[in-house]
């Protein structure tokens, strides 16, 4: 019987609202006591450190199967633990696409051997063709936690309606990319004076809002559960806010990148800041931050998207979109909190209990008897990011050479220390 007590640490648990300095006692992989309790067993000094539940990242591309040159489940799992993430949901846009029972099973089996918990989002349509429904019921039963449209939205409204309606039988969550292809296809930037000066083909933010509004209308019609995957504009956030007021079963996610960066970070055609959806204006970023704080945006994801340097070092319009984010998920959040841009508790809610509740996962909270999945971090430690030191197999990050405030010290999964900063 192993017992570990982390002493004098700031305990932050968004599920219960607990925010106090105390001890955390871990026994046999579970949290045995919290707060002002006697110290037992081995001791880890947590003075001036903070702990929270292990983060849940609901949007990770892990490269398997088929794209192992960019990332494997194993390398993604190492990167995740270094970023304080103890549960990941891998996306279906692999080679082949995860649109079948056997592939869901393949990923889950591979995940069992890893220190992070691996979950799967199944494809909503066969080969992500946007037309042919996958076996949502059977894949749900096999363990898929939600169903994603992939990089392209379900363009046909009638098909989206049927998907939502069918998925409602299984209470399955459907995620769609809110983007109107007729407006956004072939563009690579947000429509503004910045992209106009750079001469980049661009799409307006309403492209996102229009699809979000359509999907919310369909959710209202069908009673289906909708996740608007990666919203990025002030207008969409406002739409979602109004949708929630009308009691539509809608949730929204935002990537950590869109909370920390804006279109000016593209600067002189920096393709490492080329993302999908594109980075938008500062006012959009501010709106997204407020939307996280007021609960309009439910979850923050890393949108971990490994790309090779070769596909990034291209003229801007031709370069691949995406950034790795697993390892930076918590540090970037801490930086936003340290700079007073985002309430830390709100950030933690959107990365722990909120995704756990949305996807029906265990964990995401610190309570006596729960598995001891937690992250210990410093809120104040300054450091500079060197992308070469990232554990992810791909190093494409827009935060290279950035000054950071706040860093993960230890990640504990099921009572085991699975990561420690060097």
């Amino acid at each position: 019987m192993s017992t570990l007590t982390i002493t004098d640490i700031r305990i932050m648990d968004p599920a219960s609202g607990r925010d106090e300095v105390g001890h955390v006692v871990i026994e046999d992989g579970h949290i045995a006591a919290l707060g002002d309790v006697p110290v037992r067993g081995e001791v880890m000094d947590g003075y001036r450190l903070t702990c929270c539940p292990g983060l849940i990242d609901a949007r990770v591309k892990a490269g398997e199967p088929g794209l192992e040159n960019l990332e494997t489940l194993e390398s993604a799992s190492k990167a995740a633990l270094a970023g304080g993430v103890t549960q990941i949901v891998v996306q279906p846009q692999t080679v082949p696409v995860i649109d079948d029972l056997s592939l869901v099973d393949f990923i889950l089996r591979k995940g069992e051997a890893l220190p992070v918990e691996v979950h799967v989002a199944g494809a909503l349509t066969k080969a992500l063709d946007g037309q042919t429904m996958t076996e949502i019921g059977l894949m749900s039963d096999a363990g898929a936690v939600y169903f994603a449209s992939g990089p392209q939205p379900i363009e046909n409204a009638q098909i989206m309606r049927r998907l939502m309606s069918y998925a409602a039988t299984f209470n399955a969550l459907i995620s769609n990319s809110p983007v109107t292809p007729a407006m956004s296809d072939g563009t690579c930037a947000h429509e503004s004076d910045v992209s106009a000066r750079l001469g980049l083909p661009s799409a307006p933010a309403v492209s996102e809002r229009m699809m979000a509004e359509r999907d919310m209308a369909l959710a209202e019609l069908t009673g289906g559960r909708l996740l608007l995957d990666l919203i990025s504009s002030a207008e969409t956030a406002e739409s979602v806010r109004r949708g929630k007021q009308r009691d539509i079963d809608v949730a929204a996610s935002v990537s950590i990148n869109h909370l920390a960066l804006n279109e000016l970070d593209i600067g002189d055609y920096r393709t490492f800041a080329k993302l999908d959806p594109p980075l938008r204006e500062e006012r959009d970023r501010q709106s997204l931050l407020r939307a996280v704080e007021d609960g309009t945006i439910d979850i923050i994801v890393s949108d971990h998207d490994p790309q090779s340097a070769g596909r990034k070092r291209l003229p801007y319009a031709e370069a691949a979109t995406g950034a790795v984010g697993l390892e930076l998920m918590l540090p970037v959040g801490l930086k936003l909190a340290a700079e007073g841009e985002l309430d830390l508790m709100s950030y933690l809610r959107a990365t722990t209990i909120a995704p756990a509740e949305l996807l029906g996962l265990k964990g995401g909270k610190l309570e006596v008897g729960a598995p001891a999945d937690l992250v210990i971090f410093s809120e104040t430690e300054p450091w500079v990011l060197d992308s070469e030191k990232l554990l992810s197999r791909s190093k494409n990050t827009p935060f290279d050479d950035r000054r950071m405030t706040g860093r993960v010290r230890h990640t504990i999964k099921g009572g085991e220390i699975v990561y420690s900063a060097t």
Partner: protein
Amino acid sequence: MTPFEGYEFTKTHCLDISDFHRADIENLLALGAHYSDLDVQKNGPRDLLGGKTLINLFFENSTRTEKSFELAGRRLGADVISMQVASSSVKKGETLLDTAATLNAMNPDLLVVRHGSSGAPSLLAQKVSCSVINAGDGTHAHPTQALLDALTLRQAFDGDFSGIRIAICGDILHSRVARSNVQLLTMLGAEVRLIGPPTLIPTDADQWGVEIFHDMKEGLSGCDSIMMLRLQLERMSGSFVPSKREYFHYYGLDRKKLGYAKDGAVVMHPGPMNRGVEISSGIADDPDISLITYQVAAGVAMRMAILHALSDGIR
């Protein structure tokens, strides 16, 4: 045999269940039961429709419905002809109303129509001077199928529908059989439930006086009879349901799901069946459970009864 003792059947057409009131239906079913006796059926009133002409006008393919009308007509002494619509002037672009005018000029007495468009038989009925029987129109109605299903159930449950719980399962959205059965069976006092994935249940069907279920276990609980509907294979892959495998897993009737219903529950299917998609062969072929062959037999009897009843108007 005077089936309508003390009551006059005044209808000219048989287009939709809602055209009839309960007394009409009870009388039709009683007459159907009368014709269910094979002796009556084969050695019955050969002259009832003697000298009358029945035209089968099928714009959609059918085997059992068309042949059962033909047989019913012949057993009552009518001259039966079947229009081969596929090779007729319809293919050459003739409109439905022109066809109606042409047929009307031939002075038939009974016109049995199946058409792919909802409402086509009632349009025809306005333009011809004979009786029109709807043998299925679009996704609207199939009254004679509903009546023969009711006749089958009447025999299985000794004539009493009150408190009988009947589940209609599968593709309700595209089914005219389901729509007519809902009307008829609720009129007769049965408790009707619809079970299927939400993509195959019409919007607001709960306002038809039935309960809707998306789960077979819940829906079949306490059912006395289960009516399975054919899932058209072209709807199988696409956006209504994902695959045969998944459909059968959640909505196909097998022994396990049958176990959720009442002990001794009976199973029906309007045919043609997709074995292994909506119903397992074991159940379809089990004489203790399946009423499917009785339905076909009841089809001829019920159609004789309908022709008989309408013949009062013809005379």
